[in-house]
């Protein structure tokens, strides 16, 4: 077991590392997960979370979701709610891929209808949605229009004809963070990201065709509310972010904050990847405005990708996307910092909630949810490994214990190097084909790095999130086709 001796169970599927585990902690660390998941976490997860617990202004606890694994600065699967008046904003609490997120899309097609054309469909998707290094999207914008993208997010894409109003209603924040201000974005970030609208990227980014089997439904009524109505229904899930634009925003401000922390703010640098600035400082507000631009670029990116998915399905099945029932279920981020209202010790407060590899999971009745989902709660999309499947969950009222945050994926258990030593990309592709999963990968080495055995079991993660009371399972989705970045 890698977990430190000081870790104590405090509630079902909830563990706590007390203040004092390391010097400077302002709040405890709270870890959600089953005994098995927590015992498998590397001790770096706890060290990094304890460093997060030292951040100025942090409220209640530094949280680790059930899929947590160690990263840089924050653990992946880390959440920190920070008082914006007295506290900081940290790019390391968001990640380089700002607003990396998931979108789940229904179709009215069933698996028996899709199966005969699966290879053709995966090829059509791979053709229309560029993946991998150096690929550019089909959308061309000038500088002025790209700044519109940064201000408007997914709304820009819909205005240009790449989607419909209902897509926006079913996107977190309607696909636009209003505090975006392109004045705080470098020309370098714009040059890097401008050609990349409508591209997947690489690493763990993917676009997957999935099937809903009757045995995978945990809550039938809720599944129906989210458009999962038919046995053997085919859906599409994809995972990507703000591409080089967001990466450059994060890089730019990491350097800015590292310079300003000791010199201007007198803040100690606990870990360079926890570089931060007071939220109310000039630097902090500038990063927040730029980060919101990157979030909007990402919402626009996923909206344009959805347009391309609709076109690919239409090409293959010879019917209009509308006739094929290609509808957004929800689009949700797992790499952001957002100002949200939460109750803390009976008092409602505005907090800057950093989620890095953690999904917002608002409960039934939350005013920020679209009207059609407000009575049931927010759909939560957890991407599993490309071999084992993914999950749709829903936000619950008891999720206030994690500032309405839950897991975002399976969580890695193995490094990319180790995964490559265990299997070649070609062998994995053949193995997946034997299991009926058609894969098109931009890089076979990248494919091997994402093998199912390199991840925790998504069933365990989803069950742990439910046991911890931070979200509830709705349906398990099984992969049949994958375009891998």
């Amino acid at each position: 077991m890698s977990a430190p001796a000081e870790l104590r169970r405090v509630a079902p599927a909830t563990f706590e590392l007390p203040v004092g585990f390391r010097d400077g902690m302002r709040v405890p660390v709270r870890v959600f997960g089953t005994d098995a998941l927590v015992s498998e976490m590397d001790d770096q997860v706890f060290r990094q979370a304890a460093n997060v617990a030292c951040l100025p202004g942090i409220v209640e606890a530094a949280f680790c979701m059930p899929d947590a694994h160690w990263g840089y600065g924050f653990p992946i699967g880390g959440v920190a709610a920070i008082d914006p008046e007295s506290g900081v904003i940290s790019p390391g609490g968001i990640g380089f891929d700002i607003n990396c997120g998931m979108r789940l899309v229904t179709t009215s097609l069933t698996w028996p209808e899709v199966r005969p054309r699966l290879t053709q469909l995966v090829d059509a998707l791979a053709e229309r949605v560029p993946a991998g290094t150096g690929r550019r999207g089909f959308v061309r914008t000038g500088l002025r229009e790209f700044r519109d993208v940064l201000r408007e997010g997914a709304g820009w894409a819909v205005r240009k004809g790449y989607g419909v109003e209902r897509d926006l209603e079913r996107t977190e924040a309607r696909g636009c963070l209003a505090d975006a201000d392109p004045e705080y974005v470098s020309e370098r970030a714009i040059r890097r990201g401008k050609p990349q609208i409508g591209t997947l990227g690489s690493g763990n980014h993917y676009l997957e065709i999935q099937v809903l089997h009757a045995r995978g439904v945990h809550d039938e009524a809720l599944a129906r509310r989210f458009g999962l109505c038919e046995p053997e229904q085919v859906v599409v899930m994809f995972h990507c972010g703000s591409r080089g634009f967001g990466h450059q925003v994060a890089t730019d401000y990491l350097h800015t904050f590292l310079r300003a922390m000791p010199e201007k703010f007198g803040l100690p640098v606990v870990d360079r990847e926890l570089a931060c600035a007071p939220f109310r400082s000039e630097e902090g507000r500038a990063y927040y405005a730029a980060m919101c631009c990157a979030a909007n670029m990402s919402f626009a990116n996923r909206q344009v990708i959805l347009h391309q998915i609709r076109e690919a399905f239409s090409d293959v099945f010879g019917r209009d996307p509308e006739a094929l029932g290609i509808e957004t279920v929800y689009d949700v981020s797992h790499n952001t910092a957002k100002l949200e209202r939460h109750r803390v010790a009976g008092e409602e407060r505005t907090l800057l909630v950093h989620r890095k590899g953690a999904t917002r999971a608002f409960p039934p009745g939350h005013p920020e949810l679209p009207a059609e989902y407000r009575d049931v709660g927010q759909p939560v999309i957890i991407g599993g490994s490309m071999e084992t499947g993914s999950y749709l969950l829903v936000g619950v009222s008891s999720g206030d214990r994690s500032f309405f945050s839950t897991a975002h994926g399976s969580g890695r258990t193995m490094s990319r190097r180790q995964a490559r030593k265990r299997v070649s990309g070609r062998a994995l592709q053949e193995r997946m084909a034997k299991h009926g999963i058609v894969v098109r990968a931009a890089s076979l080495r990248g494919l091997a790095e994402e093998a199912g055995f390199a991840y925790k079991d998504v069933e365990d993660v989803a069950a742990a999130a439910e046991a911890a009371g931070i979200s509830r399972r709705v349906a398990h989705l099984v992969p049949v086709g994958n375009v891998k970045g």
Partner: protein
Amino acid sequence: MSAGSFRFVEGAPGDLSFLARGPTAEAALVAAGEALLAATLEDPAALEARETRRLRLTETEADLLLLRFLNELIYLRDAEQLLLRPTTLRVTRDGALRLDARLEGERVDPARHTLLSDVKAATAHGLVLRETPDGWEARATLDV
């Protein structure tokens, strides 16, 4: 340029970490650039010298110079579609550290290049550029 080498090492499971070594700071930086290329491209040796760029950077600390150097190469890959390696590189210190490098390489060509990871950024996690009894070493973690 000389005599550096690199290898990928275990680190954060979602990322790629490397250790580069060389007899001088310059050689370790060049080897770090090769590690980035090896993360990006299946056959870095086949990269042809069709384009050149000049890179000048100033930093106060050696490891931050390494971070800036790697992130400049990543920026040029996305912004100009260029895969580049340093062919000459000098670091001088006059209060600040100044890096002056000539970069050579070519544009991304999916027909000829087998591309690997689309490295998002070099992170500051575990970042090191320092002199050791055995020469210089550079360590960094790449977010992929």
